[in-house]
C-alpha cells in the first residue's frame, strides 16, 4: 500500500459510521486504564472509558492523517509549504485576532521566535506578538 492509499483508507475508515464495534486484544498500561476509569467516573469526561479511548484515538488519527496529507503535498509541491510567518498570519486571521491586520508585526515576531524556538508553531508566534504589543502599549 503506498502512502496516498494509506491516507485515503484511513480517511474512509474515520468517516465510516460508528455503529459496529469490535473487541480488541490491544494492551494498554494498567495505570493508564485506571486513570481513564477515574476520569470517566469522577470528572465525567466521557460516558465510558471505551468512549474516552475511542474519542482520543479518533482525535489523534484525524490530526495524523491531515498532517500526513499536507506533508505529502509539500513533498510534491515544496513552494506550497507555508513559512512560520505565513502560519502566524493565517492563525491570526482564523481567530479574528487584531494582529491579523498587522502582518508585518507577525512576520517580525515569527523571525524573532524561531531563532530561540525552532519548533515554535503559529500559536506560539501569535501569543508572543500579542504579549510584545501589550508591553509596548
Amino acid at each position, binding site marked *: 500500500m503506498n502512502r496516498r492509499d494509506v491516507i485515503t483508507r484511513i*480517511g474512509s475508515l474515520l468517516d465510516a459510521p460508528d455503529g459496529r464495534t469490535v473487541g480488541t486484544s490491544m494492551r494498554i498500561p494498567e495505570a493508564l486504564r485506571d486513570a481513564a476509569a477515574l476520569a470517566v467516573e469522577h470528572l465525567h469526561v466521557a460516558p465510558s472509558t471505551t468512549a474516552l479511548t475511542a474519542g482520543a484515538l479518533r482525535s489523534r488519527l*484525524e490530526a495524523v492523517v*491531515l498532517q500526513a*496529507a*499536507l506533508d*505529502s503535498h509539500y513533498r510534491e509541491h515544496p513552494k*506550497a509549504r507555508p513559512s512560520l510567518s505565513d502560519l502566524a498570519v493565517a492563525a491570526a486571521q*482564523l481567530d479574528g*485576532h487584531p494582529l491579523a491586520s498587522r502582518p508585518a508585526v507577525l512576520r517580525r515576531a515569527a523571525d524573532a521566535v524561531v531563532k530561540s524556538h525552532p519548533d515554535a508553531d*503559529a500559536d506560539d508566534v501569535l501569543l508572543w506578538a500579542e504579549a510584545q504589543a501589550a508591553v509596548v502599549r
Partner: protein
Amino acid sequence: MTPPRTVVLDNEAVHALRSTDHAKHPRVIAHVQVVAQRKRKAIPLDVVVPTAVRVEAGWDRRTPAAALVNHLRISDMPLESASANVAADLVARLDVSVADAHIGATVHAVADRGPVTILTSDPDDMAAVVDPVPATIVTI
C-alpha cells in the same frame, strides 16, 4: 481570543485548495496547516464545506483531481430540510446565490458549537448571509 470551532469554505477557497496553480493556494493551505497544528494539540476544530458550495466549485469527490482536497478532512454540510428553509429565506431576502445561502445556513447551524470562521473571496455577501450570527470573515 477564542480560536474557531468551525471553519467554513466558500467557492473560491475550495478552488484555491484544489489547484496548486491557483494564486491563493499557498494562503489557504496555510489556514489548513494551522488547523492541522491545532488538531495535533487536541483543540476541537472542523473544516466544513456546504454541499451547494461543492457543487458550485465542481468538487466531485470521486475524481482524481480531488485527491488532495479529499485528504484534508473537510466534511460535507448537507442541504437538509432545516438548512434548506434557512437558505431559501436568505435567497428570497438577499438575492444571493444558492451556494452563498447554504453557507449562511451552515453558519447558523453550527454556531452553537462555538466560534465560526469563513474563508471567502466575498466578505460582503458573507456578512449578509451570516447576520445576526457573529462570524469571523477572512478575505482570501
